[in-house]
């Protein structure tokens, strides 16, 4: 039994590990990679077969997780700002698409009920493919990306009423030849026994639980778990949160995807947001990948071969119809030209909820099972074509407008791109200065007490260990302008700098250093500015001491400025003699540089103290007496000097 399970896992994993990186390298995107992997192990090699269907239902949970993550990125305010597009674009395209498909169906001789069901099914686009691809291509924050997202979200929400409508469209003659007792049984919820008003009440109560629980309960709960410092328990809690929400939604008959999305939105302001995000993301990725593989593997070759004419016609027809509706509606709502193409080409496939609705419809005898099978193929094929449509978008549409499109998005976030890792005594001061100037920062700290204190003062802080690469990514490393590494742990700060430098060669990294050797390792790791945590304050203490000893305050200031300058120069000169683990690589070179530094510094300070005139670091000193004596002797020349014509009046 275990061998079988291991073998199955082995097959899926090896297929994706081989295919996905190759597909990505070839510019096809990861989604197509997974789909190809599925086709390879399914229809072509025949290693996996009918069990994919069961697996698919499990993998669909990846979509639920994805919507949770999408929700986390979307603060309620942003969602509210989106309302016009959500209802306008989403609602219009849904209505128009259903009407168009139903119309064509009726014209082709289908009964209106079946035509309507097909309409409802094919309206659904694939959140999984589209969101994944948009994120991969960095298009999520562009005009087209936002319009696509609004449309997808509306479709997801529309699944709920759709599920309610389908049983009403059940055809008596289909039911006739099936065992009536099983109809709809699978989807009966706990609430079926309740009267209508109680059901409505329970539904609202469930949504209320998600909203209030997320808002009031999760913070103390996550803090309690975070304080245990057990990483895997936090992951378990994150998973539990998603699963519990999904379960609750299932119980009251709402879409789990919608429920977790809602939970995500509620938690978007939570300080544990990035932690949750990075914990769930790998599960989402794997499950979605699995889902795409099952789509590829589930292609029924016999049906495809026997009915290929009809099926291909349906695929092409549906894609063309959906494209026309989506493109037309976007244009109508004044979405920009390239963004309309993105919405049209991106969303014209039939999505994963199509499978769910097809299964549901056949189970409810609203759709003949042969037609359902064919539709499943159409959905799978249209999904497989989507990556090519995205490639076409890249090649033909995006090129001319791409630059301006992306730059627009940049400007919006222009101010918000500072990540501060560590919010202790050091990071706090930096953060307050930046905030005072109106810059937006994302602050990470691994001590929940610190996070709480900051929250109390209204400073946005997130809980999490900043040395974890996934958390840095979740905090927005890929489009940050500046990373400030302010944690006091020497080794982890070097790790963070190394990772960030590898991810973002162009990023400005400011790092806090404990001591000289730490400076050298940070330098090797690629930090742009390195600040010794106690140097500046020690220098100030030294200046106070000099003043107290009777030096003029301005002289004390100049000596300390000079000293600082020399010291920093020397550090930069000696850094190359160290290797990146902080050990001395070139001792002779280092000693020479150190000697030179000492001599230079002594000379400079001697010059600064004396009145001797020589080139070097000294600043203003009075000219020697001889200069003035010669000047008085030059008196006779004064007349000629005065007679020099001034420049004309200007």
């Amino acid at each position, binding site marked *: 039994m275990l061998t079988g399970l291991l073998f199955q896992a082995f097959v899926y994993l090896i297929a994706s590990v081989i295919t996905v990186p190759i597909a990505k390298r070839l510019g096809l995107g990861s989604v197509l990679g997974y789909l190809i992997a599925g086709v390879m192990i399914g229809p072509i090699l025949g290693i996996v077969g009918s069990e994919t269907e069961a697996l698919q239902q499990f993998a669909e949970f990846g979509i639920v997780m994805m919507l949770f993550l999408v929700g986390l990125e979307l603060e309620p305010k942003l969602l509210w700002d989106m309302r016009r597009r959500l209802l306008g674009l989403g609602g219009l395209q849904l209505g128009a698409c259903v009407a168009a498909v139903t119309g064509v169906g009726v014209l082709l001789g289908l009964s209106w009920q079946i035509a309507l069901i097909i309409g409802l099914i094919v309206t659904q686009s694939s959140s999984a493919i589209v969101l994944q691809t948009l994120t991969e291509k960095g298009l999520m924050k562009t005009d087209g990306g936002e319009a696509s997202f609004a449309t997808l979200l509306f479709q997801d929400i529309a699944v709920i009423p759709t599920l309610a409508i389908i049983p009403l469209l059940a055809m008596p003659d289909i039911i006739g030849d099936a065992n009536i007792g099983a109809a709809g049984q699978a989807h009966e919820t706990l609430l079926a026994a309740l009267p209508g008003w109680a059901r409505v009440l329970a539904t609202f109560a469930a949504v209320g639980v998600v909203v209030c629980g997320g808002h009031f309960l999760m913070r103390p709960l996550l803090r309690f778990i975070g304080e245990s410092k057990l990483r895997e328990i936090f992951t378990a809690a994150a998973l539990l949160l998603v699963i519990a929400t999904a379960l609750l939604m299932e119980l009251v008959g709402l879409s789990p995807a919608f429920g977790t999305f809602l939970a995500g939105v509620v938690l978007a302001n939570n300080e544990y947001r990035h932690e949750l995000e990075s914990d769930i993301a790998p599960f989402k990725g794997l499950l979605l990948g699995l889902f795409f593989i099952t789509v590829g593997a589930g292609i029924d070759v016999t049906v495809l071969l026997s009915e290929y004419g009809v099926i291909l016609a349906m695929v092409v027809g549906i894609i063309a119809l959906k494209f026309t509706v989506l493109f037309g509606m976007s244009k109508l709502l004044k979405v920009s030209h390239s963004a309309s193409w993105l919405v049209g080409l991106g969303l014209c496939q039939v999505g994963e909820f199509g499978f769910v609705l097809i299964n549901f419809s056949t189970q409810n005898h609203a759709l003949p099972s042969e037609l359902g099978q064919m539709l499943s193929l159409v959905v799978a094929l249209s999904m497989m074509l989507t990556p090519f449509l995205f490639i076409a978008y890249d090649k033909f549409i995006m090129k001319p407008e791409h630059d301006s499109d992306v730059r627009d998005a940049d400007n919006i976030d222009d101010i918000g791109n500072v990540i501060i890792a560590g919010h202790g005594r050091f990071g706090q001061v930096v953060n307050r200065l930046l905030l005072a100037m109106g810059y937006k920062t994302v602050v990470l700290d691994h001590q929940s007490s610190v996070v709480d204190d900051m929250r109390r003062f209204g400073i946005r802080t997130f809980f999490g260990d900043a040395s974890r690469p996934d958390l840095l990514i979740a905090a927005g490393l890929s489009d940050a302008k500046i990373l400030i590494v302010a944690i006091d742990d020497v080794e982890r700060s070097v790790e963070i700098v190394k990772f960030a430098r590898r991810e973002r060669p162009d990023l400005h990294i400011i790092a806090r250093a404990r001591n000289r050797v730490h400076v050298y390792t940070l330098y090797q790791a690629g930090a742009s500015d390195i600040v010794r945590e106690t140097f500046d304050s020690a220098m100030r203490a030294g200046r106070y001491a000099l003043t107290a000893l009777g030096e003029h305050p301005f002289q004390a200031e100049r000596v300390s*400025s000079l000293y600082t300058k020399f010291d920093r120069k020397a550090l930069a000169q000696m850094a190359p003699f160290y290797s990146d683990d902080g050990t001395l690589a070139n001792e002779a070179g280092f000693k020479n540089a150190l000697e030179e530094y000492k001599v230079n510094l002594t000379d400079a300070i001697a010059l600064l103290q004396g009145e001797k005139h020589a080139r070097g670091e000294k600043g203003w000193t009075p000219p020697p007496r001889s200069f003035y004596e010669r000047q008085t002797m030059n008196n006779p020349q004064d007349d000629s000097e005065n007679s020099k014509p001034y420049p*004309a009046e200007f």
Partner: protein
Amino acid sequence: MTDKTNIIIVYAHPRRDLSRANEQLINAAAELGHVKIVDLYAEYPTYYIDIVQEQERLIAHDVIVLQFPLYWYSTPALLKEWQDQVLEYGFAYGDGGTALAGKKLLCVITAGGSKDTYSSNGTNNYPLSTLLTPIQQTAILCDMEFLSPLVLYSAKCAATDDRIDTHIQHYLTTLTNLKGAQ
């Protein structure tokens, strides 16, 4: 050093974000490509000037342009500090102080008041040619040629009454003519 630019503009403006005329002038000059621009307040925000670096820069150029808004009939404080520190004895004047001999000094100035105010019967009593004599005498002591300054009077409304474009053009022509100067 074969391809050295022979003009250096030492630009002193403590609030570039509030500038109306100087920003346009310096940006236009930067487009020329053959001038080296030093934003003094950006390089020395703490007023601690790197004297050696500044002296090396002066040696490397033949024409030194000081561009600044007129503050209290003189330069902004950091440019005065720059003069105090950089033009030192033994470098710019005095024994062996011949580093600047033969170079040209050009002041590019914006003034808030109109030209009329800078006259014996105006609010400011003295013409700018008199007020700038300290800089002129500095040039003389350093054996430099003091070129006739470029002044934009009533700088605040220069943009609205269309004088700024002519002035920019004038500035660029002057810089281009100085390019080949030795």
